[in-house]
């Protein structure tokens, strides 16, 4: 009995150790974002301090001129946040419009080359993004899509569309085909079955898929780095905060927290869906 108690104690301790390793960096960066510059650069590191909102004020450009430690330096982090929201949401929307019918077709129809097509779509998850960006860059410059929302939403399909198709297929396969057969017996046509029978059943799954894909779009960095100048997403704007010459760590910390809040809010909203999606393709 004593041995059992001891094992359980050790196990709980190990779990706490794992949780500490996973959570500490995030807690630390949140703490840093509320510190003054002097506290951040202090050694040994400061664990107790007077929290200040100054970093966030500088980040969103609402600090009084001269009042912040960075003088009149402009950051304007608000725009990249909006850019990321527009691009990610737009990409998810387009992927849903194009991907849900495709996912449905791949789940319900039998045709030659079906598995090849499905595998080909999965293959996009492994596409070397940079290999596509190099030609894409010239192409975008030539037709004026460089640094545009429309262009970004289009290239983001490289990440979001295969994922939506694949997830949607797996969700449709979970719906018993008998339901559709019953509707067909009642005389419903294909498009009608899809819109009125399948889509409502699919909705919870699609909400989860959309959340996850939004997350992935939010993560992206390389596409924005190369294909935008003004319409930069959050991730690219963060890198610009690491302005050489100024030790900008406090403001970077605040920026990091902003870039992380959205994903963390999303897992709180949809933890159930995300586990399926994060292991995308590997588990069904």
């Amino acid at each position, binding site marked *: 009995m004593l041995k059992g108690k001891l094992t359980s104690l050790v196990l709980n301790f190990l779990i706490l150790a794992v949780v500490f390793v996973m959570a500490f960096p995030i807690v630390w960066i949140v703490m840093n974002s509320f510190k003054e510059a002097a506290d951040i650069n202090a050694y040994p590191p400061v664990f107790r301090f007077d929290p200040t909102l100054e970093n966030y004020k500088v980040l969103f450009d609402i600090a009084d001129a001269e009042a912040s430690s960075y003088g009149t330096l402009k950051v304007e982090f608000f725009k990249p946040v909006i850019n990321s929201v527009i691009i990610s949401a737009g990409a998810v929307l387009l992927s849903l419009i*194009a991907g849900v*019918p495709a996912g449905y077709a791949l789940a319900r129809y039998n045709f030659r080359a079906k598995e090849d097509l499905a595998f080909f779509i999965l293959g996009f998850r*492994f596409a070397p993004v*940079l290999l596509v960006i*190099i030609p894409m860059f010239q192409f975008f410059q030539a037709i004026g899509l460089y640094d545009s929302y429309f262009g970004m939403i289009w290239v983001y399909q490289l990440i979001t569309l295969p994922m939506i198709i694949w997830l949607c297929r797996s969700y449709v396969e979970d719906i018993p085909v008998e339901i559709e057969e019953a509707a067909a017996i009642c005389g419903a046509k294909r498009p009608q079955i899809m819109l009125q029978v399948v889509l409502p059943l699919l909705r919870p799954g699609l909400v989860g898929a959309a959340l996850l894909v939004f997350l992935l779009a939010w993560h992206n960095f390389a596409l924005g780095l190369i294909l935008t100048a003004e319409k930069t997403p959050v991730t690219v704007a963060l890198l610009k905060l*690491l302005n050489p010459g100024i030790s900008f760590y406090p403001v970077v910390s605040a920026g*990091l927290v902003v870039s992380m809040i959205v994903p963390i809010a999303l897992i709180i909203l949809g933890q159930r869906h995300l586990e399926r999606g994060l292991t995308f393709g590997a588990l069904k």
Partner: protein
Amino acid sequence: MMREGVNRGRSGRTFLLISLLPAILILGGFILLFFWGFYQSLTDMRFGRARVDFEGLGNYARLFDRGRFWDSISTTTIYAFTAVACEAVLGLAIAKLFNTRTLLAKWCRPVILLPLVLPPLSVALMWTTMMNPETGVLNYFLSFIGINNFGWISKADTAMFAVVFIDVWTFTPFFALIIFAGLRGISPEIIEAGRMNGAKAWGLFFRIELPMVLPYIILAALFRLIDSLNQFDIIFGTTQGGPGNATNVLSISAYFTAFQNLQFGRGAAIMIVNWFVVLVSALVMVKLWRYTRKRVS
């Protein structure tokens, strides 16, 4: 039977075509770009210069001639294989840990999702601030065990360790999630039967559990290996390939070749080689996966 009935006929075909067409058009566009990229790699294309000469395998020949390029190939493979191996072992340990019947395991499970949902670039910058050799909190912790002024990303001989460390922190949860699902899939009867035959805890693990979750581990390794061989964000956010050449993986090298030196042709050639490395590794992993899955069943 009915399913066939619904699908057959011309209206079924048209519906199928309409459903698939938008997706195929969008993805097909990327395939065209991919081929164009391949063509570029056979030319001396530079950004901002109109003249483009076709020069066959010239870019490749020049790359393979340079020691730095081979260094990049080995850096890429070392980075990816070390990271994935560490992630597999730690992921297995964490999955086992969270599969126990302790109270904390149930409560704390969402926490291990955290690193996976953060943007990799944010993760990279977050660790950059913590890895500062003078004032970073990591070196503060290390000073407790007598290690002082560890270089992390600022020194050539520790930079690789540091970026692999970040990759491991970020993606170990991916393994843990998948292996956890694998462990949950093992029926209790099999474990019970093993116990009846007198197997001890470790014996159960090595003879029953490990072989049964091995296909899951390899599948996760396949996914992660491909991502790590293509890794760009984590390294760009920390070392940008430096110090010196210490972490100059192929994708970083291609980026700087194409967008700093403006040699688009050569940059594309580097990416083609990177893609080839990914392809070969993926095929080997798929073979391995099929083999382990056959053994289980």
